[in-house]
């Protein structure tokens, strides 16, 4: 089959690779119908996170049609159209049974590599680094999906592929971020970042009952999307000297009840410990993102919630004293997609959630390297590049 492979820093190539096979009894083979780029891919493409191996097939946000099923698969049949969360979960361990799917104990074949970095290993993520499992990803014609009964969600008839694709990753991540905010009537939620995850977090905040949503970004076309597709109020931080003061004025001096950090990152794939290895790059990353996170910590009202979807490494100058004195609640995770998918599909069927506007650019798989180049450099107002293999 054809697949988009990471061959080195800033070196992606489309290659012919062996077809995936059923290896374990709960596997299915999926024929990919749609797959999309994610901001967290950029970190290993740029060489900021280690444990990629040349030849790795990338991509972790996808949907497809079941082509083959393992002997123990019960709920999924050949021919089913399904969407799959990017983190692989077994459904049987303590974490899965407590709806903490991305923390699954049983899906990371390289758990022993990751444990020293995080203390305890997480579940695996498709198409990502070897510390996160090393499973081949979705920018390919076919893909092996382990624990298919837990990971594959049937797509209701009447929903188009591009309405469902982002329910694999961006939507559940954003929804989880809003869910963490425990939104009550009258609440105002501020979201840093208007990429796929940030936009989904804003929309989810409204779905969960927020009175107002305020979006902060620097790309005019993304802010426009937040206003037009979601109804968020927007702040372009590149044009205003003091975001904090503006937020305070917009909220009667109280501050937003919850602040969601979805800056620059699409919220999963890289773990904190990784960044030790590339100190210089880490500093660069942390400097950028640290500003948004610190701003969010300052902006949120006393006793409010800070929900972190962005990825952080060894951040210095983390203002824990502000968090403590203001009595903030901090919540964060890689996405627990298996927990949110049923709810998200329901919203999609009712017409309350249609993320298809994120698919600003379409490519064939063969154009993968060019697509990532555009995505990385934010050319032509691109929000997400979508591949139809």
């Amino acid at each position, binding site marked *: *089959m054809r*697949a988009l*492979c990471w*061959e080195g820093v800033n070196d992606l*190539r*489309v*290659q*012919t*690779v*062996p*077809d*995936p*096979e059923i*290896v*374990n*009894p*709960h596997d299915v083979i999926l024929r990919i119908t749609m797959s999309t780029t994610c901001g967290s891919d950029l970190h290993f493409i740029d060489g900021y996170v*280690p*444990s990629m*191996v*040349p*030849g*790795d*097939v990338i991509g972790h946000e996808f949907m497809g049609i079941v082509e083959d099923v393992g002997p*123990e698969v019960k709920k999924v049949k050949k021919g089913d159209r399904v969407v799959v969360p990017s983190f692989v979960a*077994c*459904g*049987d*361990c*303590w974490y899965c*049974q407590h709806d903490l799917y991305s923390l699954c*104990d*049983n*899906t*990371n*074949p*390289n*758990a*022993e*590599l*990751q*444990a*020293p970095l995080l203390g305890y290993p997480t579940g*695996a993520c498709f198409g990502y680094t*070897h*510390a996160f*499992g*090393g*499973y*081949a990803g979705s920018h*390919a014609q076919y893909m*092996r999906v*382990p*624990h298919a009964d837990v990971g594959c969600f049937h797509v209701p008839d009447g929903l188009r592929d591009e309405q469902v694709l982002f329910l694999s990753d961006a939507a559940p991540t954003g929804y989880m971020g809003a869910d963490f905010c425990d939104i009550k009537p009258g609440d105002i939620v501020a979201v840093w970042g208007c990429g796929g995850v940030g936009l989904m977090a804003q929309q989810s905040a409204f779905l969960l009952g927020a009175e107002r949503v305020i979006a902060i970004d620097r790309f005019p076309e993304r802010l426009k999307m937040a206003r037009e597709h979601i109804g968020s109020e927007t702040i372009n931080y590149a044009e205003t000297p003091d975001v904090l003061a503006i937020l305070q004025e917009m909220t009667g001096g109280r501050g937003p009840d919850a602040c969601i950090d979805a800056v620059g990152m699409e919220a999963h794939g890289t773990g904190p410990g990784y960044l030790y290895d590339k100190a210089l790059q880490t500093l660069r990353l942390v400097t950028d993102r640290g500003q948004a996170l610190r701003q969010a910590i300052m902006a949120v009202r006393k006793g409010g919630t800070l929900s972190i979807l962005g990825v952080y490494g060894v951040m210095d100058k983390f203002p824990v004293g502000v968090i403590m004195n203001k009595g903030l609640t901090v919540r964060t995770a890689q996405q627990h997609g298996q927990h949110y998918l049923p709810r998200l599909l329901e919203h999609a069927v009712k017409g309350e959630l249609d993320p298809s506007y994120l698919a600003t650019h379409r490519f064939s798989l063969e154009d993968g390297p060019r697509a990532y180049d555009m995505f990385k450099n934010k050319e032509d107002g691109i929000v997400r590049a979508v591949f139809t293999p």
Partner: protein
Amino acid sequence: MADALKGALGAGEASREQRRGTLILGGALLALGLRRVSFGSAALALTGGALLYRELARRPGQAGAKTSEVTRSVTIGRSADELYGFRRGAGHLPRVMEHFAVITETDQDRAHWTVHVPGGRSFSWDTQIVDDRPGELLSWQSLPGTELPNRGEVRFRPAPGDRGSEVTLHLHFQPPGAAAAKALNGLVPRTLAGDALRRFKSLVETGEIPTLDRNPSGRAATA
């Protein structure tokens, strides 16, 4: 590699057994690391390689009989009795350890281990169960005459709440060189023990072991 092994093995009858023991471990770890291509495995391969290198560079006769030990624990969502039963069940041990060794269970209490190392060689030893307390503990040790004396024990005890059981694996090697013992105290035995426990847990909890076998990649691909 084959020549290096042969040369090393041919040196001096007295240290022959000791040297072979270290070479087995070093080579096995190297093989293990190289097979699982990834950055942590690279560390594993390097450690294995370092072990080999140190042994090859070491002059015969300076070995100290230091031991190397490791203890790792994992919590598994099953009762201690169930876990003991799984561990005792035929075929379970060979599957859990197949990433490291080929194990043939000769009878209920004995197993034959074979580890393949680079250069086409393989090394073997037999283990015997020496303590068996159902639902609580199982311990084993290698039979006399092996190149790599080792013993181990697995202990099961109830975990609090709905968490199942706490399972502790204790491994004890007698590598023949002081340098080897030092190296063994690091990452490698911890990784081996941790992998074994995780593989056991996954098999028991999910009925399968996560794997990258036959994982598509562009590593051997033609563009």
